[in-house]
Protein backbone atom coordinates (compact mmCIF):
# COMPACT_ATOMS: atom_id res chain seq x y z
CA UNK A 1 0.00 0.00 0.00
CA UNK A 2 1.16 3.52 -0.73
CA UNK A 3 2.05 5.92 2.05
CA UNK A 4 2.85 9.62 2.28
CA UNK A 5 5.24 11.24 4.75
CA UNK A 6 5.30 14.91 5.59
CA UNK A 7 8.40 15.71 7.60
CA UNK A 8 7.41 18.99 9.15
CA UNK A 9 4.39 18.84 11.44
CA UNK A 10 4.53 22.42 12.67
CA UNK A 11 6.30 25.31 10.99
CA UNK A 12 6.42 28.87 12.29
CA UNK A 13 7.76 31.62 10.06
CA UNK A 14 7.82 35.38 9.87
CA UNK A 15 6.36 37.17 6.88
CA UNK A 16 8.65 37.30 3.86
CA UNK A 17 10.55 34.18 4.93
CA UNK A 18 10.92 31.36 2.42
CA UNK A 19 8.99 28.13 2.84
CA UNK A 20 9.75 24.56 1.94
CA UNK A 21 7.55 21.69 3.11
CA UNK A 22 8.79 18.18 2.54
CA UNK A 23 6.71 15.33 1.16
CA UNK A 24 7.87 11.80 0.34
CA UNK A 25 5.79 8.91 -0.86
CA UNK A 26 6.31 5.20 -1.12
CA UNK A 27 5.03 3.71 -4.36
CA UNK A 28 7.01 2.34 -7.25
CA UNK A 29 4.55 2.91 -10.08
CA UNK A 30 2.96 5.90 -11.73
CA UNK A 31 1.69 8.47 -9.29
CA UNK A 32 -0.36 11.63 -9.42
CA UNK A 33 0.69 14.13 -6.78
CA UNK A 34 -1.22 16.91 -5.08
CA UNK A 35 -0.85 19.59 -2.45
CA UNK A 36 -4.01 20.76 -0.70
CA UNK A 37 -4.45 23.64 1.73
CA UNK A 38 -6.97 24.09 4.50
CA UNK A 39 -7.35 27.65 5.77
CA UNK A 40 -8.83 28.05 9.25
CA UNK A 41 -12.53 27.22 9.18
CA UNK A 42 -12.55 26.39 5.47
CA UNK A 43 -12.69 23.22 3.44
CA UNK A 44 -9.66 21.68 1.74
CA UNK A 45 -8.78 23.14 -1.62
CA UNK A 46 -6.20 22.31 -4.25
CA UNK A 47 -2.93 24.27 -4.35
CA UNK A 48 -1.32 22.41 -7.23
CA UNK A 49 -0.97 19.00 -8.83
CA UNK A 50 1.45 16.99 -10.94
CA UNK A 51 0.80 14.00 -13.15
CA UNK A 52 3.27 14.31 -16.04
CA UNK A 53 5.53 16.71 -17.92
CA UNK A 54 7.59 19.48 -16.34
CA UNK A 55 8.46 18.32 -12.82
CA UNK A 56 8.30 21.89 -11.53
CA UNK A 57 4.66 22.84 -11.19
CA UNK A 58 3.18 26.16 -10.24
CA UNK A 59 0.01 26.58 -8.27
CA UNK A 60 -2.15 29.28 -6.84
CA UNK A 61 -0.96 32.09 -4.56
CA UNK A 62 2.70 31.82 -5.61
CA UNK A 63 3.23 28.23 -4.50
CA UNK A 64 5.25 25.75 -6.51
CA UNK A 65 6.36 22.16 -6.08
CA UNK A 66 9.06 20.01 -7.59
CA UNK A 67 8.65 16.33 -8.36
CA UNK A 68 11.92 14.41 -8.00
CA UNK A 69 11.21 10.87 -9.11
CA UNK A 70 14.52 9.43 -7.89
CA UNK A 71 13.84 10.71 -4.39
CA UNK A 72 10.10 9.92 -4.38
CA UNK A 73 9.58 13.51 -3.29
CA UNK A 74 7.19 16.34 -4.06
CA UNK A 75 8.25 19.30 -1.92
CA UNK A 76 6.19 22.47 -1.71
CA UNK A 77 7.89 25.87 -1.86
CA UNK A 78 7.08 29.54 -1.67
CA UNK A 79 9.80 32.21 -1.85
CA UNK A 80 8.10 34.70 0.46
CA UNK A 81 5.21 33.78 2.76
CA UNK A 82 2.43 36.07 3.89
CA UNK A 83 0.36 36.11 7.05
CA UNK A 84 -2.58 34.85 4.95
CA UNK A 85 -0.67 31.62 4.21
CA UNK A 86 -1.33 30.48 7.77
CA UNK A 87 -3.08 27.16 7.20
CA UNK A 88 -2.68 23.41 7.23
CA UNK A 89 -1.02 21.85 4.19
CA UNK A 90 -1.53 18.30 3.00
CA UNK A 91 0.43 16.33 0.47
CA UNK A 92 -1.55 13.62 -1.33
CA UNK A 93 -0.73 10.79 -3.70
CA UNK A 94 -3.17 9.14 -6.04
CA UNK A 95 -1.72 5.82 -7.15
CA UNK A 96 -3.06 2.57 -8.40
CA UNK A 97 -3.73 0.04 -5.65
CA UNK A 98 -5.19 -3.21 -6.91
CA UNK A 99 -7.72 -2.13 -9.51
CA UNK A 100 -8.40 1.27 -8.05
CA UNK A 101 -6.77 4.66 -7.67
CA UNK A 102 -6.74 5.48 -3.99
CA UNK A 103 -6.02 9.04 -2.83
CA UNK A 104 -3.73 8.88 0.20
CA UNK A 105 -2.87 11.88 2.35
CA UNK A 106 0.02 12.78 4.57
CA UNK A 107 -0.45 13.84 8.16
CA UNK A 108 -0.36 17.49 7.31
CA UNK A 109 1.83 20.45 8.21
CA UNK A 110 0.50 23.30 10.28
CA UNK A 111 2.02 26.58 9.11
CA UNK A 112 1.82 29.73 11.21
CA UNK A 113 3.09 32.96 9.70
CA UNK A 114 3.70 35.85 12.05
CA UNK A 115 3.13 39.35 10.66
Amino acid at each position, binding site marked *: *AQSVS*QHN*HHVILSEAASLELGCNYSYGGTV*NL*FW*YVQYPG*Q*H*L*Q*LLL*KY*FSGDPLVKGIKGFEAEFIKSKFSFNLRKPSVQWSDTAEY*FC*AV*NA*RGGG*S*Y*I*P*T*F*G*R*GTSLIVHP
Partner: protein
Amino acid sequence: DVKVTQSSRYLVKRTGEKVFLECVQDMDHENMFWYRQDPGLGLRLIYFSYDVKMKEKGDIPEGYSVSREKKERFSLILESASTNQTSMYLCASSPDRGREKLFFGSGTQLSVL
Protein backbone atom coordinates in the same frame (compact mmCIF):
# COMPACT_ATOMS: atom_id res chain seq x y z
CA ASP B 1 -18.60 25.34 -9.21
CA VAL B 2 -18.83 21.84 -7.88
CA LYS B 3 -20.66 21.63 -4.64
CA VAL B 4 -20.25 18.86 -2.10
CA THR B 5 -22.76 19.25 0.68
CA GLN B 6 -22.60 17.51 4.01
CA SER B 7 -25.89 17.52 5.85
CA SER B 8 -24.62 18.60 9.27
CA ARG B 9 -21.74 20.82 10.34
CA TYR B 10 -21.85 19.72 13.96
CA LEU B 11 -23.38 16.58 15.44
CA VAL B 12 -23.50 15.30 19.01
CA LYS B 13 -24.47 11.68 19.61
CA ARG B 14 -24.41 9.23 22.47
CA THR B 15 -22.41 6.03 22.67
CA GLY B 16 -24.26 3.16 21.00
CA GLU B 17 -26.42 5.33 18.76
CA LYS B 18 -26.66 4.65 15.04
CA VAL B 19 -25.37 7.69 13.16
CA PHE B 20 -25.91 8.66 9.55
CA LEU B 21 -23.68 11.21 7.82
CA GLU B 22 -25.00 12.33 4.48
CA CYS B 23 -23.10 13.72 1.53
CA VAL B 24 -24.47 14.98 -1.76
CA GLN B 25 -22.56 16.24 -4.80
CA ASP B 26 -24.11 18.13 -7.68
CA MET B 27 -21.66 17.53 -10.54
CA ASP B 28 -22.44 13.97 -11.59
CA HIS B 29 -19.10 12.68 -10.26
CA GLU B 30 -18.71 8.93 -10.26
CA ASN B 31 -16.18 8.80 -7.44
CA MET B 32 -16.95 9.60 -3.82
CA PHE B 33 -14.93 9.24 -0.65
CA TRP B 34 -15.27 9.43 3.12
CA TYR B 35 -12.29 10.48 5.22
CA ARG B 36 -11.86 11.26 8.86
CA GLN B 37 -9.52 14.06 9.89
CA ASP B 38 -7.82 13.98 13.27
CA PRO B 39 -5.12 16.37 14.55
CA GLY B 40 -1.68 14.96 13.85
CA LEU B 41 -3.05 12.07 11.82
CA GLY B 42 -4.14 13.90 8.68
CA LEU B 43 -6.89 12.45 6.52
CA ARG B 44 -7.54 8.75 6.66
CA LEU B 45 -9.72 7.01 4.11
CA ILE B 46 -12.69 5.13 5.53
CA TYR B 47 -14.60 4.00 2.42
CA PHE B 48 -14.88 4.97 -1.21
CA SER B 49 -17.17 4.30 -4.11
CA TYR B 50 -16.57 4.41 -7.87
CA ASP B 51 -20.14 3.71 -8.90
CA VAL B 52 -23.68 3.40 -7.64
CA LYS B 53 -24.10 0.44 -5.28
CA MET B 54 -20.35 -0.09 -5.34
CA LYS B 55 -18.17 0.39 -2.26
CA GLU B 56 -14.64 -0.44 -1.26
CA LYS B 57 -12.92 -0.34 2.10
CA GLY B 58 -10.29 2.26 2.75
CA ASP B 59 -7.61 2.17 5.42
CA ILE B 60 -9.86 2.35 8.50
CA PRO B 61 -13.28 0.83 7.72
CA GLU B 62 -13.84 -0.84 11.10
CA GLY B 63 -16.97 0.41 12.82
CA TYR B 64 -18.29 2.07 9.66
CA SER B 65 -20.42 1.15 6.68
CA VAL B 66 -21.57 3.11 3.63
CA SER B 67 -24.46 3.30 1.24
CA ARG B 68 -24.61 4.60 -2.31
CA GLU B 69 -28.07 4.09 -3.73
CA LYS B 70 -27.89 7.11 -6.05
CA LYS B 71 -24.92 8.55 -7.90
CA GLU B 72 -25.03 11.91 -6.15
CA ARG B 73 -25.40 10.63 -2.59
CA PHE B 74 -22.89 8.77 -0.43
CA SER B 75 -23.80 8.04 3.17
CA LEU B 76 -21.52 7.03 6.01
CA ILE B 77 -23.06 4.95 8.77
CA LEU B 78 -21.76 4.38 12.26
CA GLU B 79 -23.69 1.30 13.35
CA SER B 80 -22.99 1.82 17.07
CA ALA B 81 -21.14 5.02 17.77
CA SER B 82 -18.20 4.94 20.14
CA THR B 83 -16.18 7.74 21.73
CA ASN B 84 -13.14 6.94 19.57
CA GLN B 85 -15.22 7.88 16.54
CA THR B 86 -15.33 11.50 17.69
CA SER B 87 -13.73 13.25 14.74
CA MET B 88 -14.13 15.55 11.74
CA TYR B 89 -15.62 13.62 8.83
CA LEU B 90 -14.95 14.83 5.31
CA CYS B 91 -16.75 13.77 2.18
CA ALA B 92 -15.14 14.26 -1.23
CA SER B 93 -15.94 13.58 -4.85
CA SER B 94 -13.98 13.56 -8.08
CA PRO B 95 -14.73 13.17 -11.79
CA ASP B 96 -12.02 10.64 -12.51
CA ARG B 97 -9.95 8.09 -10.70
CA GLY B 98 -6.45 9.38 -11.11
CA ARG B 99 -5.52 12.85 -12.26
CA GLU B 100 -8.31 15.03 -11.03
CA LYS B 101 -8.44 16.70 -7.67
CA LEU B 102 -10.88 15.87 -4.94
CA PHE B 103 -13.69 18.31 -4.21
CA PHE B 104 -14.33 18.43 -0.49
CA GLY B 105 -17.36 19.24 1.58
CA SER B 106 -17.11 21.48 4.62
CA GLY B 107 -17.00 18.53 7.02
CA THR B 108 -19.09 17.23 9.89
CA GLN B 109 -17.62 17.52 13.37
CA LEU B 110 -19.03 14.52 15.22
CA SER B 111 -18.82 14.27 18.99
CA VAL B 112 -19.76 10.97 20.61
CA LEU B 113 -20.42 11.27 24.33
